[in-house]
């Protein structure tokens, strides 16, 4: 067999980048067998390199030297589940195990869906499941090592105690992974090590006889996974995941998970920002990263340009009012509106003014660019269309109230709300296509997917309208009104509300998937990056949640309310707080 080394990647001399190097010794005496083993290793390494999942370590490199082969992969900070079980005082909480189980089903399902051939993990057991510093699972020790185990008869792989009966006959199928997953969960929730018991004796050790605190429902899921006959188990990892999600919904685990979990070590107030930058007043806007720079407006009337890597001040541009709009970069110019009623266009490099455009009201609506026009709303109740090069007005569309909502341009229409709840769809010539009336202000900015457009309203609903004609498809009741702009990922839509919750709703049928409680209003608009959702709250925290379950990954506490939205770029989260600071954190 071989060893795993912790190593440092010297391609990056200025930072400490740790990697794991797995060494495998080729001890086969026959040269032809040795050659086959190396070829198998290289084939597997190439296959692994194509996998891309948060619960699978990334492969950076592989090589063979003499009788040893090496695999260079992502270093996982954390403990393996075997150690977690052994170190725990008493039983692990059910909610915690369910949450890991859901993640394991997720990654196993990903592997089984691999094309052209499904990847069978073959060796699911607690010691191959790492719990990383975020409390998430990562699968380690892929079947790759198996090619080096010569001398064993046939294709006996997997670990006794966790392997299903058919694996002892040399069959490796997706259903074998389901069984091993069941065995792993059985071990985790009962603390009875199956390696110390006769094979396939799980039925003689019912979960609830050992651990009374486990729900009937969760026991039932484990039992189905552990059925002797493969056809009696869950047909797929997805089916098992769904069963687990149902258990989690019933037992309330989904909402409890975040509370029950010790927040990521290094979480809580332990998270150190990469850098922070102090302005002279509150920040309520959203930053924009662009080619190594970060632009953000502030209530001290300035637009700041910072170095995105270290927060170094580059330049600032003074307007005559507070800036909450999100700047947009176009053709080496930064474009943004201000409470001084003007749209400002300044050069990216030095912050020199290019042109300004006057409206008759304060500007809270962020500009959007499409087809050579800039679209934005103003407190003068108009939606303005301005030529992006000349700054000349093309047309204005007048409504009956100030416009704080930032327009969405999609399907050749411009969608926006106003402060009396009118939601408008206007075409590129400034003609109204349709209007929908909600009961209170629509301050949030719409998002769309396909033929539907989504937004929240101060009337306490999240709306889905037909983008073509404004028909309401569904309404979802929030606890209180919302000015938070929704965001979409997979089939889910996410939004914050004044009741302090961040909601996740199924975009097809308006059913709630999860909700996460913060300590105060959520006026921030969430953003999705990889498998996380980032959202600030008036309670002063920036939250990072796993977006499929709403489980808290970490939170970062600023000194005052966070009203603006974060932006994530290149694994770094940038956001401003009313404590006057701009922060950069590792995502």
């Amino acid at each position, binding site marked *: 067999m071989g060893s795993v080394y912790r190593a440092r990647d010297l391609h990056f001399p200025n930072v400490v980048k740790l990697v794991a190097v797995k060494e495998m010794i080729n001890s086969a005496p026959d040269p032809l067998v040795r050659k086959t083993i190396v070829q198998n290793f290289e084939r597997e390494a190439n296959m692994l390199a194509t996998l891309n999942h948060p619960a699978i370590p990334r492969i950076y490199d592989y090589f063979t030297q003499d009788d040893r082969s090496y695999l260079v992969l992502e270093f996982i900070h954390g403990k393996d589940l075997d150690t977690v079980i052994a170190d725990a005082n008493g039983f692990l909480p059910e909610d915690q195990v369910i949450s890991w189980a859901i993640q394991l089903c997720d990654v196993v399902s990903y592997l089984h869906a691999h094309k052209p051939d499904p990847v069978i993990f073959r060796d699911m057991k607690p010691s191959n499941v790492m719990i990383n510093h975020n409390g998430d699972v990562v699968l380690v020790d892929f079947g790759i090592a198996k090619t080096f185990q010569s001398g064993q008869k046939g294709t006996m792989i997997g670990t006794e105690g966790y392997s299903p009966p058919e694996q002892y006959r040399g069959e490796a199928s997706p259903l074998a992974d389901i069984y091993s997953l069941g065995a792993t969960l059985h071990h985790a929730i009962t603390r009875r090590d199956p390696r110390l018991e006769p094979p396939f004796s799980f039925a003689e050790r019912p979960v609830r006889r050992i651990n009374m605190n486990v729900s009937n429902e969760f026991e039932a899921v484990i039992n189905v996974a552990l059925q002797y006959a493969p*056809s009696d188990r869950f047909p797929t990892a997805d089916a098992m995941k769904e069963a687990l999600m149902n258990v989690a919904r019933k037992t309330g685990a989904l909402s409890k998970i975040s509370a029950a979990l010790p927040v990521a070590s290094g979480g809580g107030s332990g998270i150190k920002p990469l850098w922070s930058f102090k302005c002279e007043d509150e920040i309520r806007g959203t930053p924009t990263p662009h080619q190594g720079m970060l632009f953000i407006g502030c209530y001290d009337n300035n637009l700041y340009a910072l170095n995105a890597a270290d927060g170094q001040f580059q330049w600032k541009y003074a307007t005559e009012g507070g800036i909450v709009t999100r700047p947009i970069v176009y053709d080496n110019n930064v474009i943004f509106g201000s409470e001084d009623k003007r749209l400002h266009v300044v050069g990216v490099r030095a912050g020199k003014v290019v042109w300004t455009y006057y409206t008759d009201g304060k500007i809270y609506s962020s500009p959007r660019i499409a087809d050579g026009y800039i679209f934005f709303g103003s407190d003068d109740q108009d939606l303005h269309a301005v030529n992006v090069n000349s700054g000349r007005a093309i047309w204005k569309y007048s409504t009956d109230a100030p416009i704080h909502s930032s327009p969405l341009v999609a399907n050749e229409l411009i969608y926006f709300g106003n402060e009396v709840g009118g939601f408008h769809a206007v075409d590129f010539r400034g003609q109204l296509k349709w209007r929908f009336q909600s009961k209170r202000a629509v301050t949030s900015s719409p998002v769309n997917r396909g033929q539907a457009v989504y937004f929240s309203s101060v009337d306490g609903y999240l709306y889905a309208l037909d983008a*073509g004609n404004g028909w309401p498809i569904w309404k979802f009741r929030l606890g209180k009104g919302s000015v938070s702009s929704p965001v979409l990922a997979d089939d889910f839509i996410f939004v914050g509300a004044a009741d302090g919750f961040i909601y996740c709703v199924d975009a*097809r049928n308006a059913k709630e998937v999860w909700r996460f409680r913060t300590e105060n209003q959520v006026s921030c608009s969430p953003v999705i990056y990889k498998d996380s959702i980032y959202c600030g709250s008036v309670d002063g925290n920036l939250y990072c949640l796993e977006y499929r379950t709403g489980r808290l990954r970490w939170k970062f506490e600023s000194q005052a309310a966070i009203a603006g939205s974060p932006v994530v770029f290149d694994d770094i989260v940038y956001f401003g707080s009313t404590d006057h600071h701009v922060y950069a954190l590792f995502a």
Partner: protein
Amino acid sequence: MADFFKKLFEKKTKAKEQPAQQKPVDLAVTAPLSDQQINSILMNQYLKNEMKQLIASVGQSVGKQREHNEDSLLALTTTISGGADNIPFGLYIVADGMGGHQFGEVASNAAVRIMGGNITKKFHSYLYNLPTQILQESLQEVMETSVMEAHQYVQREAPGSGTTVTAALVLGQQVTIAHVGDSRAYSIFPDGRIDPITRDHSLVKRLEELGHLSKDEVANFPHRNVLIRALGQGEALEADVFTVPFPQGGYLMLCSDGLWGVVSDKDIHRFVAEAPSLPRACQNMVEAANAAGGPDNITVILVQMIG
């Protein structure tokens, strides 16, 4: 610094554009098209000239082994043109009743009429009033309340009976579905895909989802017709209500288990794709189900959006 970026950026975009323009033509390889593909392309071109509209056709048969028809259907297609808007509106419902003393007929018939009446009443002012008005109620709420009304009626007037109901409300490009039981809605695409939109509320499906039955066992399960949810049954009824886009360039199909349980997906797709018209496609599917024994009542609605 910014100039430097600018230079870098400009070069890149140029480099990207040029090869695209000079792409040699003779590298392109195309497979010959089948007659069917050519026909469907020609058909689509022809349809492009039409006004945007829904067309629908239906088929129904008592089958070969039952005495009563306990299936009901409703198909309502409306096209109004003349204002600025011309939004196609269609309502399609299939219900498959069950219960003794002919109450199955009563239940399915009541379900389609009450739901149909309720939904059209809600849309009356939009369709026939001037100026037209958009509903405040959402499409999914309209569907939910209509299912509940039908549910209460069946409980009151035909106690002990029940019915499946699969209803599709088409408005513009959206299809809003309300579904209880094991009748089905499908999206049928020209490229051969036939995707079920609904999920059966049946014992066999439930066991399959729970992993208690293998594929073979599902096919031979003795209680295939046992429902776990039906309109008219139980106190609280939860219908599946959701919205999907109308299948682009394809068909929406609603049917009872007298069709989908007897005729394979592949054959259904073939009948739909090869028939010269929607009525013929419906007729062929019903005939195929009868030819395969016609064990149950057969109902099908086929909808296409053209233009």
